[in-house]
């Protein structure tokens, strides 16, 4: 009996002993790295003030300051001289503070005097020290972009990073990015409907980022077209119907101006038919599952339109399907821009794109084609400014690593005569059970609108927490 008891006790001991489990693995010693977001900053004649961003590798472990020194090239510090900074840098060093938990900080650079034509003028900033009130076990480190060259004249950025403000999982914006000037311009996706080409041709583009579609009707009398006339056609005039023929209802996915869904506007009014317009969707407002997108909100409905020419102007007639009268607006060509944009919401012109030579890439939702199945809506798409002369192609890292890729490796013939030179090739598509993800075995070569050659590598599709619509990339002038 005693034996039995002992055995039971022994087992109980084993039971308890085996229930203990090991603890979590200790964390990796982390550096707290501070760097300039970009290694260069340039001013054109109209700019007078810019923020200089400093970024951290991780959230700041505590409050602290970064000490930054500078050297000058034909420039003098002072409010009555060439430049000043905020915080003050009169002493030759500025102390930029930050708070615990911040992911970066910044200081302001004021350009007071332009450079004399033909002479260089600049300030070179260097990170010199980081101090923290409490390092919390991290090691403050200066690494990466430790220097920043500020130029008082416009120069192409030699390298940089950009996080286009696409706007999260609803991908609210079309973002136009200019690499050489490190600038981005955003326009809400559903802020425009039609773009009227400002070049020699008379072409009209539709807004593929909200999945619009148009179909030419037999009629040339906009007031005579009734909802009954188009009832049968309506289900087909849409994106993503998986009908190969529906590709005719959207603009050429290559970006070729000749391929717009609306035919060239003829001088002869009788050749310009009425078009049935599917206005696509409003920008979505739902919050999707983590890693997903919710691009579309309510359907925006239908319009009928007819576009004519009047001298060098366009004349747009538009109306709701039920209407027996129509509105009419004359749209003139605007020099310097590729398109002049019109919105049915505001019934007015709207600003969308920057000047034609001031953007290289457009981050946007996009109406693409799946060969054999027709049009298909894409999130996270990137087009190049094909009409402005920007083209790109993809390089697999297996062929050449990003870091080792130089101007000598550029193959001119590889540039695609297609706005989809980057397209969706920078991400893996995902599928049932897998979310789309960053494709890390590929980078891109871009010839920008000024003829500069850049290599581009994408560093994010989602934010740190996995939320879609937060792309980021780095680039380097070749």
């Amino acid at each position, binding site marked *: 009996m005693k034996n*039995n008891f002992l*055995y*039971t006790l022994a*087992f*109980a001991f*084993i*039971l308890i002993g*085996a*229930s203990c*489990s*090991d603890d*979590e*693995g*200790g*964390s*990796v010693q*982390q*550096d707290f*790295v*501070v*760097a*300039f977001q970009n290694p260069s900053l340039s001013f054109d004649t109209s700019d007078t003030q810019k923020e200089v961003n400093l*970024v*951290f*590798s*991780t959230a700041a472990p505590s409050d602290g300051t970064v000490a930054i020194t500078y050297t000058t090239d034909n420039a003098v510090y002072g409010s009555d001289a060439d430049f000043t900074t905020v915080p003050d840098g009169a002493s030759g060093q500025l102390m930029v503070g930050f708070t615990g938990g911040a992911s970066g900080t910044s200081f302001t650079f004021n350009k007071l005097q332009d450079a004399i034509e033909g002479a260089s003028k600049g300030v070179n900033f260097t990170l010199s020290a980081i101090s923290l009130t409490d390092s919390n076990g991290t090691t403050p480190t200066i*690494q*990466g*972009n430790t220097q920043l060259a500020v130029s008082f004249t416009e120069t192409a950025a030699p390298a940089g*990073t950009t996080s286009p403000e696409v706007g999260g999982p609803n991908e609210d914006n079309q973002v136009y990015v200019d690499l050489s000037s490190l600038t981005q311009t955003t326009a809400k996706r559903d802020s425009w409907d039609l773009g009227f080409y400002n070049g020699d041709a008379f072409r009209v583009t539709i807004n593929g980022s909200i999945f619009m579609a148009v179909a030419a009707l037999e009629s040339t009398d906009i007031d005579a077209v009734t909802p009954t006339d188009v009832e049968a056609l309506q*289900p*087909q005039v*849409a*994106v*993503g*119907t*998986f*009908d190969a023929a*529906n590709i005719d209802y959207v603009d050429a996915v290559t970006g070729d101006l000749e391929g717009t869904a609306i035919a060239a506007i003829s001088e002869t009014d009788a050749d310009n038919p009425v078009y049935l317009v599917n206005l696509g*969707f409003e920008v979505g407002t*739902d919050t*999707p*599952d*983590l*890693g997903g997108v919710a*691009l*579309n909100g309510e359907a925006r409905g239908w319009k009928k339109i007819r576009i004519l020419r009047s001298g060098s102007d366009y004349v747009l007639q538009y109306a709701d399907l039920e209407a027996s009268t129509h509105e009419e607006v004359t749209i003139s060509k605007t020099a310097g821009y590729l398109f002049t944009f019109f919105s049915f919401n505001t019934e007015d012109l709207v600003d969308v794109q920057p000047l034609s030579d001031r953007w290289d890439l457009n981050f946007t939702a996009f109406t693409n084609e799946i060969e054999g199945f027709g049009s298909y*809506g894409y999130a996270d798409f990137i087009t190049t400014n094909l009409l402005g002369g920007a083209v790109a192609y993809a390089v697999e890292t297996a062929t050449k690593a990003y870091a080792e890729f130089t101007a000598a490796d550029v193959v001119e013939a590889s540039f695609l005569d297609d706005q989809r030179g980057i397209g969706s090739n920078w991400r893996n598509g995902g599928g049932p*059970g*897998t*979310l789309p*993800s960053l494709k*890390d075995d590929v980078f891109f070569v871009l010839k920008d609108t000024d003829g500069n050659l850049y290599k581009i590598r994408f*560093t*994010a599709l*989602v934010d*740190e*927490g*996995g939320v879609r619509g937060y792309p980021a990339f*780095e680039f380097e002038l070749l």
Partner: protein
Amino acid sequence: MSLNKNKFFIYFSTFFCFVGFSQETPRVEIDSMAMQNLKEVVVTGQINKQSVDKSVFEVKVISRETLDRLAGNTLADVLNQSLNINIQPNPSTGKSSVQLFGLDGQYFKILVDNIPLINDEGLGNNTDLTQINLDDIEQVEIVEGSMGVQYGSNAVSGIINIITRKDSDHKWEITPYVQEETIGNEYGFFDQGRHIQSLSLGHRFSDQWYVNGNLTHNDFTGYLNDREGQYHPLNDGRRGYEWLPKLQYSGKGLVNYSGKNFKSFYRMEYFDERVERYDSLVRENFNPSTQTSNPTATDEVFTSKRFYNHLNLSGKLLKTLNYDISASYQQQKRNVEQYNYRINAREKFDVNSQEYESRKGIYSRGTVNDFFKSEKVSLQLGYELSNINGYSSALAGTFDGDNIERRLEAYDAFATTEIELGKRFSFRPGTRAMFSSQFKTQMAHSLSAKYNFDKGYQLRAVLGTSPRNPNFDELFTYFVDVNHDVQGNIDLKPERGVSTFLHLKKNFFPENLGWRLSSKISAWYLNVDDRIELTIVNESPLAFQYNNIDEYRTWGTSLTNKLAYGDLQLDLGLSFSGESKVLNSQDSFNDDYLYALQLSSNFSYQFPRINTTFSLFFKYNGPQYQFVLDTNQDDPSFVRAKQEGYGWMDGSIKKTFMNDKLHLTLGARNLLDISRINTQTVNSGGTHSSPNNGLLIGYGRSFFVKLLYNLNI
């Protein structure tokens, strides 16, 4: 730190030496195996508990002895060896489900003591076999074929009825055990392998009152294979586990009263499980400015809790009527904690916990029988009712971001009668009407018959039907965006399953019962009509919807033999079956039958002198085929795509010491070291096999040692 197999053997052999010192005492006299077979008693589908031989149904039994020889802790550990059953493990969710006659877990029902066991996806269906602990189980009974009259809807391909222990010969029973297992070639005392500890207590207060309780801790630490675990910072597909870590606690309790004309038991179960899923997708978050990475990933921890309460009353009314009533409240809830993880900082953020899926509700089943004083005719009337509240979060399905909550009430009434015509022939017709809050009234029917020929040949014919109810995905899916239109269908009807089985059986034995051979030939045909499948309901714009459109049929034949000779026992089964799919949901299909072969065998030998039993289990699953449309040819045609056959072998040595008090079991699972099996696919290069994309079915050869102490007073 993974342990190589040599080291492992050394570790175990020292273990063996240690216990080897304990004194050996003469073994307790046990019945010969031939005798044991004769006493097999089954509960499933019977009007009264009766012996296998008398049952009109053909019930397969996995005995406690077999469970022990396989050192089975969960149902998933033991069903691998059953003919016609395949286990489908899902490494990415950690679940394992049953496939029987080519139909998945939705068509198969798992019961405990005759009532369906709830899980987070259904009442009795879609059960995760790894969540069913076997520690207080007396035997597992398996019936193939549609059992709608006896067990209601969703019992199309068959049922498993788990019979728990409700009595003991001893006043006190204290049974602790520990079990250590490798997972493939991975083992470590705490951080790798499978670690099980269990304690059972039983006490008989009197001839009437018996209680028992059981606690089990089962820690499956996950299988890495070539993966690197939670802290891997690179996006090379190697983060996380190939088989997810899973930690289970199970507690059970029973109070049993057994009087002369009244019996009752109350049994409860609490089950708690934690499954960790570390995503292989790592966001490296390279920051070009600082030249640093801050890798993050989105991980999920699933925690499941199950409560099970079962009160059963049975006895005699008015001296003749037998009644048996079960009432039950059960619930199982699966919660998910989804969070982002900074891998270098070892830090969680954006933690979001919510209910993932759940089922809860009440269930009752009752029968009354023996209205007639006749030995020849017995009538059973019964009811079954359930009121189950189901919940499926937007994370668990595609419901347009909505959470689905639905109450399904079912009220069934059934009647069966067993009629003996002479000494040789008995038959048993039955019918059930199923009323529910969701679906139109369904009927299920059954007709079984048994005939005893001369020379001990028995012929059984069993015809049964059972519907399968549509699941949440089929009813409520809503996936509509600019490119897609896929929708569930609230108007779906239950699928209709019908099965027919024929069994011819004979027991061979000499007068002295020195040996015994039971042989059985079976043949079956099973048909599922109105099968629910996604089908195109509009060509342009393309739209899909679930509809009752397809048909599935399978037929097969099997031969099983059980031989007991002295201390040797040998089971051998062979089955050959074909399946055919009529896929009206597709543009075109090929409904030719595709055939497959299975063999199962089980050998055990007792050495009474050294109190040792050697066992070897082997099952061969022959190649399986499916039709795949090869579009690479000019004229697309259906080709047979092959899934390789494979063998699954388990073995163990069990030795008892100290007057049967101490049991030591050493063994190995998956001796043939199977992990992935090749499946042919069709792609641009034509038909070829793609070994990398094989079906994951195991984690390789694993070893276990189990040490059990049995204190009976």
